[in-house]
């Protein structure tokens, strides 16, 4: 309780003080905002490109170094990284895949994941 109150008071104080540096416009969310609710129907290739960008951001590597057919575990993705990818898919494509079977066939590579996502996207 004390920490909550302390944070609330500090927050009020912060709103009246000038930040020392410009705020990160994406608030640490990377490029999530510009892709939320896609306006145009996406095919598997477009989904794959977005997933590759996000996974590259999670792994802090350049997107062109990621092979679409490499298993995610071989890229160094762990439980938490995988859940972050699922969260990205929900925020970007409005699909909650956590409740699905999460079997290797559909989730093990970026290409398979992109195909799975584009299959579940509503038809245009």
């Amino acid at each position, binding site marked *: 309780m004390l920490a909550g109150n302390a944070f609330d008071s500090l927050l009020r104080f912060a709103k009246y003080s000038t930040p020392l540096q410009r705020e990160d416009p994406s608030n640490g969310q990377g490029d999530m905002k510009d892709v939320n609710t896609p306006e145009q129907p996406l095919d598997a290739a477009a989904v794959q490109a977005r997933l590759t960008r996000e996974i590259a951001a999670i792994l802090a590597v350049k997107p062109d170094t990621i092979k679409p057919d490499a298993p995610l575990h071989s890229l160094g993705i762990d439980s938490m990284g995988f859940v972050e990818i699922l969260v990205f898919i929900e925020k970007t494509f409005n699909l909650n895949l956590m409740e699905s079977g999460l079997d*290797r066939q559909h989730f093990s590579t970026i290409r398979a994941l992109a195909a799975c996502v584009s299959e579940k996207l509503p038809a245009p």
Partner: protein
Amino acid sequence: MKVCLPYSRKKRYLTGIDWVVLTLNQMTRRAGYPGNSSQIVLELAGGFSVDRFQSSIRDFCALFPLLYGRPARCWNLAPYWRAPSSTAREKPPRVEVHYLPENASRDDVMDVLTKAVNAPFLSPRDHLAFHVVFAGQAKCFLGMTFDHGLLDAGGAETFLDLFQSWQSQTGFEERYRQIAFTEPAHLCNWRRRFDAGRGVGNLMRALSHSKPCSLPLPSGSNSFRFRLIHFSSEESAAILDAAEREAGYLLLTPYLLSRFIYHLQAVFKARQALAPEHLISVSVDHRTAEAAARDVFFNHMSFLFFRVPSGIADDHDRVIHILKQQMYEQAKSRFSHNLADASMLMRILPLSVFSHLRQVVLKGNFATFGFSAIGSCSFTSPRFMDADVLNLFHMPLIPVPPGLGFIVTRYGDRLNAAIPYLDGMLTREEADGLARQVRESLVAGSGH
């Protein structure tokens, strides 16, 4: 035009997570235990020259002045790690050698390693110690005890790998150039950090109302004991398959936790000390393999908190489901990132005040146990000091409270697990039973 930013290798600003880790160290020491430290153990085939190791490790450590540093506070109030400008006058890390008789058992080796990790560091500027245990001609063990203020588990693996690379003259200089020795003071983005703090505060408020199961802290003890569980390659593959079948691809964490909670619940039931829920503090490492090569020193992880009602702890499927849900919710709210961000604000507090505040906020409701699953191992060399590496595992001390943990690590295609607990917290029978049941249930797969 070449632009040079002023920085000093004598001063490395500490992040909020570093400050949390130092606070946990303070709390653990205040409870009478050695501190927030750990030990990484290499199991080697044959032996190696101790003299050569001692001189090599002395020369290698001399390359890193921050190994002899200590926390201090800057004029801008940000805490930092003050390292000496030169290591010429510093005492090298302690290397102790233990010779066991030819017929020594694995338990004898573990006794030595347990004593080693329980030995407190001799001075505030002492953060590393090495123990070499010779168990006959066939095997030897190298234990590196390290202070979590300076290295996290992944960093310790990378440090030993760097040593091997330096010692065998294979690409060390390139790797050394990549290491990040400095860190900004992070005195910016205040509003973002306060917003992050609000989210963290909400969860902490919720946790303060929880009624977690907890084992009482033993009196008259000041050390930890361990139960180590090693899995063969085949057993590890079976565990990963079962995790994928029951929890989903890559979701090893909820699977392992469901098994451990099930068997720990039996201990609480037998003691008639079951509370409404299990509260688990989970440390997560957001570092990638590339980042691990750069961020060798200090702490680069964060925390999640899971709550599992005792009433469903016997039902693996429901426990896995609830853990996956909580992982997802906390990933969605960016809790672990927010915690890392918000904890930057707490650096203003002295360690003693921060540790007291933590107790007040959580109203004494600390986790039932701490959990960590370290992903791929950063020690990749197949050899160490010309000896083949057979296995690598960790023996961490868990901050007190709770003083009980379940840690799973991976070396190559093998999984290793450790159950560290305060001496006296579990009886010998309880600890043996817990380790045996966890092992059997993981190896058996979907069976209980």
